[in-house]
């Protein structure tokens, strides 16, 4: 996996999490949403999921960039 593809990975993971929640949101107020958890619970879950996914995405992004730069510093042939 290239570095650029690696950087995209956390954001793709976030997109997948959000995409998986969309059908449930679509039903909110009607099917699953109101019968079991309700729209408020789904939105609460989404808010916390988005917040921590963003923070985690930032951590992963820093780690990958740092690994790349450290590799550059260790390998005298790369500039």
């Amino acid at each position, binding site marked *: 996996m290239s570095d650029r593809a690696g950087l995209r990975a956390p954001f793709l993971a976030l997109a997948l999490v959000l995409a998986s929640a969309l059908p449930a949101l679509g039903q909110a107020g009607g099917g699953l949403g109101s019968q079991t958890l*309700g*729209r*408020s*619970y789904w*939105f*609460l879950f*989404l*808010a*916390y999921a*988005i*917040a*921590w996914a*963003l*923070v985690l995405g*930032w*951590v992963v992004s*820093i780690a990958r*960039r*740092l690994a790349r*730069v*450290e590799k*550059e*510093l260790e390998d005298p042939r790369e*500039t």
Partner: protein
Amino acid sequence: MASPIKWRALTAGIAGVVGIVVLHWMVFFWVPTEATMGVIQRIFYIHVPAAWVAFMAFGVVALCSAIYLWLGDERLDMMAVSAAEGGMVFTTVVLLTGPLWGKIAWGTYWVWDPRLTLTLLLWFIYLGYFMVRAATESPERGKRFAAVVGIVGALDIPLIHLSVVWFRSLHPGPVVLKPEGPSLHPQMLATLLTGFGVFTVLFFSLMAYRFGLERARRAAAARAAGRLRPAGA
């Protein structure tokens, strides 16, 4: 990343993770449910601390940028860029969690309310901070231009805080920072203050981590520049 910063960042990071667990326990098992809005009000415990950290981050950017323009110390620019990246992340958290709360509480994801609009403006100002830095041909000039944007951008923070006092707004007014003192249930206040503490520790640990990256990146760039310099220069 040098060892002292690495270990300090790691220790703060572990404290931040423990704090996150405690905060979630408080939010979902300890604090009472708000009577009017119900369970959705629990977004408050990440939305407000994220806003606090975002404002603090941009305050750090402004402070470091001002001193950088004065003294020209590279470390201050490195601190500013590290804080700005964190500020962008936490402002994004604010801008995404707020509409989810607003949809349930107000019936709409977004209104062009002064506080919401000024917060979105803040996000764009700091996007500009990175664009100016990247788009300027001379890196030194880019750093100075970005420092000016960082200082000017921070002027938006008091406007955001006072917008709910100055203008008619759908967004609720301050519940903690007000002259007559906090108007929250004691358990809600304790949870909110825990959120402030956890987010602050988390921000500074990640800022230190990002600072390590910036330092390594500049060391690599300096080495590459040294290698490309013609003989005798």
